[in-house]
């Protein structure tokens, strides 16, 4: 028997060296050497209705999503390729940066012609916004450059006009924007100031004699940087600048400036340069802009919050410059919402590919001469992928919930949206990066090929961790907001309301000392641990800060000093908020297989979060025995989720053509005859 194996190995090695087929004189060897692709569907059955699960995950506008997937598949602009008997659509990333930028623009114009962007700015209300989110998400599944370019034009430029502007701006720009008569960009970030928007150095003054604003880039660090669409395609820009009126700085204001004429030539008094090749998103033309006494009409100040009258009088409905600044940044939350949701779709893509591959690829035998084992039948492989799958599910519900709060926003919910979107954006984009790395490793060398997507996506999505707010800064923002909420409630002696802190009004939960399997899977227990952790960290954080504040230190300084507690707290807050959204979704479901599987997924999410967080052990909420039990339960849950793996990724609703060759018949896709 073992001789047989050795002989086979010898043949394989000889084959490598000689590049000749193994001798056919021994026919019994041939079938063992040849690996036959067997589609995972042949051996795996669906234990629940995949369509129902997809409805929960996508949440809304399934028909519109499918329509857009179809639009992309039916056009050669989307680079369809036949591999292993199937069509795949994915950009050709081997094109030069310039080619990638041009084709991104062509794709946008094709989708424009098909009516995809109809109503993206001119229609209002939750339904229109959800439809826009859905279509935007689908664009990102095809290519993040495509959605980033759309994001710049519609969500940054378009929303800035919509939210900062008034009627005169809306009438002039929104329809033109929707029809791409104007192509907008959003010039906020500078070389010297990114997430710290307040510090930007671009200066605008007012000239009452001509009734014009004059924009200037006073120094190199004030050059606008990373401005998407600025390098090639944009002809108009939102310019975020300090407004200096008669020597008084009125803080950040928002202006519209034309930067190119209709022939695409750069306008006088504007200089534009390219940001160059990037580690990803090369389909987006990021550029740099300098302004040299650029004059724009007075009407180009977006004046919903503050205005300058013809005679140069400055008027504002908000007196406090700090509050004014807050009002300016409000529209950026929509960017965070879409970033968080596209991060989750990227993680879904990675997992769908890696899990499908792990259900058809085998490696090593457990017993000598036994059949090779399917990757996903290794407990270690399950442990690598299935907890990430469960987290992706949980975060899917979280981001759906966030979208719902966002589209139904009121002035009262703005603060909660700001805090929750900050936490979700950071945690979900980090999760995506981690998931993609694990998926890339889990598919082995195949992950290196661009066509297989999982590895390549890392470069494409990496930017999400820092744009529209650096993740670490956003997380600090969360704990600062919680601190403020805590202090204000205690000071006024009022119960907690909002941000999910209501549990702080009840007595501190007591956890059982012995954790059985059924306790660990009980949603009430899971919620208690998450609440306890949040409560404890919030109390610790506030008391640390308060104590030192009493000794005369500034609050800002103390936040910096206590960054470790701050990180733990914001993570605890965000993870609890995510868990709550899964519990809410689960509670709405009728009894049945979908609910049962979702229960397993939720338990996995809760327990893996506990397993990965040392703060529970550090602060003594769980004992060493407890964490051991949690760990064992995670392993058990892996085994229980394994039979559902295929159905769980099928429920993502991402069409086959948007996955990659290794997700399907990768033997045929790589066959000599397919060359």
């Amino acid at each position, binding site marked *: 028997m073992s001789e047989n194996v050795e002989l086979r190995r010898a043949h394989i090695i000889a084959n490598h060296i000689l590049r000749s087929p193994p001798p056919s004189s021994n026919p019994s060897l041939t079938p063992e050497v040849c690996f036959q692709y067997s589609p995972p569907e*042949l051996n795996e059955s669906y234990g629940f*209705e995949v369509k129902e699960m997809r409805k929960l995950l996508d949440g809304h506008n399934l028909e519109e999503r499918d329509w857009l997937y179809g639009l992309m598949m*039916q056009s050669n602009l989307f680079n369809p390729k036949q591999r292993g008997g199937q069509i795949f659509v994915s950009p050709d990333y081997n094109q030069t940066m310039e080619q990638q930028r041009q084709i991104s623009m062509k794709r946008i114009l094709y989708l424009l012609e098909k009516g995809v962007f109809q109503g993206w700015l001119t229609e209002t209300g939750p339904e229109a916004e959800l439809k826009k989110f859905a279509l935007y998400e689908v664009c990102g599944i095809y290519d993040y450059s495509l959605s980033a370019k759309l994001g710049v034009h519609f969500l940054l430029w378009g929303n800035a006009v919509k939210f900062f502007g008034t009627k005169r701006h809306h009438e002039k720009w929104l329809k033109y924007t929707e029809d791409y008569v104007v192509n907008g960009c959003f010039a906020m970030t500078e070389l010297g100031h990114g997430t710290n928007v307040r510090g930007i150095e671009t200066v605008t003054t007012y000239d009452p004699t001509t009734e014009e604003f004059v924009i200037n880039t006073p120094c190199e660090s004030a050059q606008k940087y990373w401005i998407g669409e600025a390098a090639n395609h944009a002809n108009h820009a939102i310019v975020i600048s300090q407004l200096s009126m008669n020597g008084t700085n009125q803080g950040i204001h928002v202006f519209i400036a034309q930067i190119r004429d209709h022939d695409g030539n750069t306008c006088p008094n504007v200089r534009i340069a390219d940001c160059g090749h990037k580690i990803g998103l090369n389909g987006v033309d990021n550029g740099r802009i300098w302004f040299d006494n650029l004059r724009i009409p007075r009407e180009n100040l977006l004046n919903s919050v503050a205005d300058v009258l013809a005679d140069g009088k400055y008027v504002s409905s908000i007196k406090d410059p700090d509050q004014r600044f807050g009002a300016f940044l409000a529209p950026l939350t929509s960017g965070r919402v879409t970033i968080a949701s596209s991060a989750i779709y990227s993680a879904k893509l990675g997992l769908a590919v890696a899990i499908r591959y792990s259900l058809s690829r085998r490696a090593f035998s457990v017993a000598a001469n036994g059949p090779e084992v399917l990757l996903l039948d290794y407990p270690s492989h399950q442990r690598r992928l299935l907890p990430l799958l469960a987290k992706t599910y949980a975060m899917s519900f979280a981001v759906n919930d966030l979208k719902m709060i966002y589209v139904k926003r009121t002035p009262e919910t703005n603060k909660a949206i700001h805090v929750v979107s900050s936490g979700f954006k950071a945690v979900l984009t980090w999760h995506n990066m981690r998931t993609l790395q694990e998926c890339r490793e889990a598919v082995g060398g195949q992950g290196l090929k661009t066509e297989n997507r999982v590895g390549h996506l890392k470069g494409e999505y990496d930017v999400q961790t820092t744009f529209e707010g650096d993740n670490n800064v956003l997380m600090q923002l969360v704990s600062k907001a919680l601190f403020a909420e805590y202090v204000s409630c205690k000071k006024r002696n009022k119960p907690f309301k909002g941000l999910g802190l209501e549990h702080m009004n009840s007595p501190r939960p007591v956890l059982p000392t012995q954790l059985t399997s059924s306790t660990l899977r009980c949603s009430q227990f899971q919620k208690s641990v998450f609440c306890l952790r949040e409560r404890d960290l919030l109390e610790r954080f506030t008391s640390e800060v308060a104590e030192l504040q009493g000794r005369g230190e500034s609050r800002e300084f103390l936040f910096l000093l206590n960054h470790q507690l701050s990180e733990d707290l914001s993570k605890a807050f965000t993870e609890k908020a995510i868990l709550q959204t899964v519990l809410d979704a689960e509670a709405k479901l009728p009894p049945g297989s979908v609910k049962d599987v979702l229960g397993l997924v939720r338990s996995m999410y809760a327990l893996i979060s506990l397993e990965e967080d040392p703060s529970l052990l550090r602060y003594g909420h769980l004992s060493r025995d407890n964490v051991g039990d949690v760990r064992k339960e995670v392993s058990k849950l892996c085994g229980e989720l394994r039979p559902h793996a295929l159905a769980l990724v099928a429920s993502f609703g991402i*069409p086959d053509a948007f996955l990659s060759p290794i997700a399907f018949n990768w033997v045929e896709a790589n066959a000599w005859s397919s060359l």
Partner: protein
Amino acid sequence: MASQSQVLVEVKSSVRILTLNRPKQLNALCFNMISRLLQLFLAYEKDPSVKLVILKGQGRAFCAGGDVPPVVNNIVQGKWRLGADFFRDQYTLNYVMATYSKPQVSILNGIVMGAGAGVSIHGRFRIATENTVFAMPETALGLFPDVGASYFLSRLPGYFGEYVGLTGARLDGAEMLACGLATHFVLSSSLDALEADLCKVGTSDPSFVSTILDAYTHHPYLKQKSAYYRLDVIDRCFSRRTVEEIISALEREATQEPDDWILTTIRALKKSSPSSLKISLRSIREGRLQGVGQCLIREYRMVCHVMKGDLSKDLVEGCRAILIDKDRNPKWKPKRLEDMKDNMVDQYFERVEEEERWEDLKLSPRNNLRASKIAAKL
């Protein structure tokens, strides 16, 4: 037995020639024929001596569709479940053909409609001739393009599939070849010689069959007024998200440049059942993203809802107007497109609840999961 004479079998060495033999009914597929075909195809797959299956029709049709009147009778008598059995077997046959491990050559020398397309297009080779007339006329009958049409129509170039599926437009052999519904075009005068040559094939390797077919291939010209030349207009209009938008896009085109073809197309859409149009469009759109098995399972749900008639009885009405009374004046309900709401469309895609022992179409796993390449030239 009737089914024996309705499907003729010729054994020519390793080739089996099956002939649909109900020429008076234009070879409309009845329950017996479907069962017989299914039985034969499954047996040939297991039989190593069979390498190739040829399917053709007796008389001037290959197959003009499914035998619908008995199904409508069942529905009228409140026995739609009998109709469901008919469609279940038919779709199972379509699935077996789509995933068949041996090449199937269908000789489409005449009318190919509805169910006729279902027993041919899924196979590896489809031979069109100068006599071929192809159509999926279901929306005019109160049904929708089924038999896996949501799979193969959605894979045609651009939005040609939506056009063919929604309007019931007729295609000739040259058009079928151009869009990929046919893989070869052979003059009918060469068919006997071709058949004789095919019978010499001693292997199931499709490249051998291909070589033989290539030798007989004729390159037809598309007629000047072919809809295939209007692919740009079709793409512009039929890519729209809803049926209403498709019609208004066509009307816009018509005001800019009125011509017979656009007017005929608009007229066809306006004559068809509104509920049929809406579920057909959704079906093709979903089909584009699904495998052939998933398509057939979904279509089975849809056809059961159509027969059950809770939302619309257009199938019975369409058959009355077109096949029975032949007044060609069906009274559709809902009458207008806007009365067919999204949530009503949704229901056609759900399982048939509150129906005893109703089950989704069950397709057994097959090794050759990859359906044959529709429009492979693209």
